[in-house]
């Protein structure tokens, strides 16, 4: 810290007496934080221990027996959740802080072990029978519940991934998987529906003011899945002239996301919508240029368009900052 500068700012009145005292206090304390190191060691310790136990269980599965393993995992899950429920702060529609520094680690450990428990139970005893949908649906509900009740964004992301898994499995039944007969069109529509559903969730999160800070996660997955679904829809039906309708879908969604990003000052979604729309536009223009067989024109297009895009980004960035 530059003492000369600090004193100057203090005498000029930019820094108040109270803040100046706080800064001085901080400097005389001269505390050296080991926070990052301890967190890393803790994470590595949990990772090493769980991996080691996992391998041990796997190697000795014949002698230990499934029940013993299941009971052991269940004990971890119960221990973690007993602690978490005991110390959790009451549910609130806004953001809730974790009650203790390493609380979220324990919650994550409990949740992961719960997933392992369900998976193991199903694999070994076929509790859900052939109902693969149920085997993913129940963990999904639990994950969403934990994410909302404990306010844990990491677990929300897991819940969203599980939702996709559940939808994917429900739409392409086991029989189709066995025959390797993927119905691409159905898959594209499913993913598009999934993406739009997530976007709707994101919107509702904000609109009804329930855990507003969850919006980013929903929108992040929603934007990627929807755009990729529409672009793959275009390539699947490439030979059909009507495929361009998919690209129009990209532009419409792009505009909606653009408005939203501008409203909420999100550089990330602004960049995503610009890049995905650019890909769609390039697909359209390439379609025209490919038939004329002129490599120079293709190169010219990329040079001009990328320069244009850079200036567009600079312009949008300025606009976003100004608003």
């Amino acid at each position, binding site marked *: 810290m*530059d003492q000369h500068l600090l004193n100057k700012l203090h005498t000029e009145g930019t820094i108040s007496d109270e803040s100046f005292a706080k800064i001085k206090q901080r400097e005389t304390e001269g505390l*050296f934080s080991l*926070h990052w190191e301890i967190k890393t060691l803790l994470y590595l310790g949990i990772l*090493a*221990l769980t991996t080691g136990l996992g391998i041990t269980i796997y190697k000795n599965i014949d002698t230990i027996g499934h029940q013993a393993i299941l009971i052991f995992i269940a004990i971890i899950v119960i221990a973690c959740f007993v602690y978490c429920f005991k110390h959790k702060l009451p549910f609130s529609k806004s953001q809730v802080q974790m009650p203790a*520094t390493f609380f979220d680690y324990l919650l994550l450990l409990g949740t992961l072990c719960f997933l392992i428990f369900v998976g193991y139970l199903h694999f070994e005893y076929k509790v859900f029978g052939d109902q693969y949908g149920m085997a993913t649906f129940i963990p999904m509900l639990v994950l969403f519940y934990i994410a909302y009740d404990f306010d844990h964004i990491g677990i929300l992301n897991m819940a969203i991934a599980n939702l996709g898994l559940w939808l994917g499995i429900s739409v392409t039944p086991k029989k189709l998987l066995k025959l390797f007969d993927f119905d691409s069109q159905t898959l594209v529509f499913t993913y598009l529906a999934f993406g739009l559903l997530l976007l709707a969730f994101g919107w509702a999160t904000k609109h009804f003011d329930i855990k507003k800070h969850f919006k980013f996660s929903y929108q992040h997955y929603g934007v990627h899945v929807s755009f990729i679904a529409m672009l793959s829809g275009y390539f699947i039906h490439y030979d059909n002239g009507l495929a361009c309708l998919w690209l129009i879908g990209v532009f419409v969604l792009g505009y909606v996301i653009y408005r939203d990003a501008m409203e909420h000052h999100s550089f990330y979604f602004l960049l995503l919508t610009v890049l995905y729309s650019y890909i769609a536009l390039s697909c359209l223009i390439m379609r025209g240029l490919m038939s004329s067989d002129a490599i120079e024109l293709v190169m010219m297009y990329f040079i001009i368009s*990328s320069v244009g895009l850079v200036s567009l980004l600079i312009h949008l960035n300025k606009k976003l900052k100004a608003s």
Partner: protein
Amino acid sequence: MIIYNKTWLNNLAVHHQFETLHHAGCITAEELKAVKEQYPIGFYTPGIIIRVGMFILTCITVLFSFGLLSLFVSAMHVVEHFGWTLFLGIVTAVILELITKEKNYYRAGIDDALMWMAAIFIAGALWWMLEPQGYGHGHADTILVSLVTMAVSLAATLRYADMLMAAISTLAGFAFIFFLWTRFGFMGTATIPFILMMFAGLGYTRLLSLRKKIPIPYYDNCIIMAQIVCLVVLYAAGNYFVTDWANHLLNNIPQKVKLAVKWAPFFWAWTMLAPLVYIGLGIRKKNVISLRVGLVLMAAGIYTFRTYYHIMSIELALIIAGVALLALVYLIVRYLKTPKHGFTYADIDNGDKANNINIEGLITVATFKQPHTHTAPENKFGGGDFGGGGSGGKF
């Protein structure tokens, strides 16, 4: 030397200092704003996300422009000559100079992309020039290649103060020493670990004093990167696995053949003890770099040991390591329940996220030596987690 406006760079350092103070909860948002207004910056620096986007787009522009230019001149057969690549690199560098000065770009993505393109094209052209017949004619070419790499990346570091360029430059410097020294026949290959250690140790201490001496932090991050590279090279030069591997390589012996490493006890001691020395020095001198590099290298040391000696199964090693780490964390957290010897486990640079342990709380604790109510749950957690680990081991 440096291309950027020095007043703005100084102001940027002021901003960073006061941002840290704001995060730690020492100054209010209004005060931070006032400081920032008093020390303005004219750079164009977008956020990291826009920077990444600009980087990608600039790469596309440059590559397609070069492709198009090469297509136009391909009839003249200049594309096959290294001079064409050199020409393109110099053109990029000139554009970079002009655009950075004109538009005041600073870490804007455009300047990053142009800098990397220019450096890669120029260095690539020079390598091509040095080895027209292809790679692998004696050691002379590797010496020159590392020298060229060092020169180009050093020039970029000095002009644009880029961290990654600084790291590459330092590494290329060590490569140069390595290739030069190992040319001296048997004497060279036998002594190379010690020579590298000497230069790395010397480099690290020089950089330490350099960072203290220079009051203006233009190159602060570059020096930190160079320090990290020096510490890693200093360790790697004496690491048993690396010396064994280099020994095979330099004597042209396949890696499968077992070869006795001279001074083996020394190298083993170095492999296992040097990281501990790093950690010890890091804690003593309160140096984050040495401490963190030491932690990472300790893992490397243990891994090296395991590749040569299989004294226990991997799962047992993992369980013991896991329990030991959790026990260590528990002990540290318990020991530092109230900050001692200037150490704390709370996240003091991030007042908002420190989970109720604010700086005032810490100060109160330090002054009155009373148990702090907020820290109690953490401590309990540490115990609970360790207990879980212990029961797991018994199981």
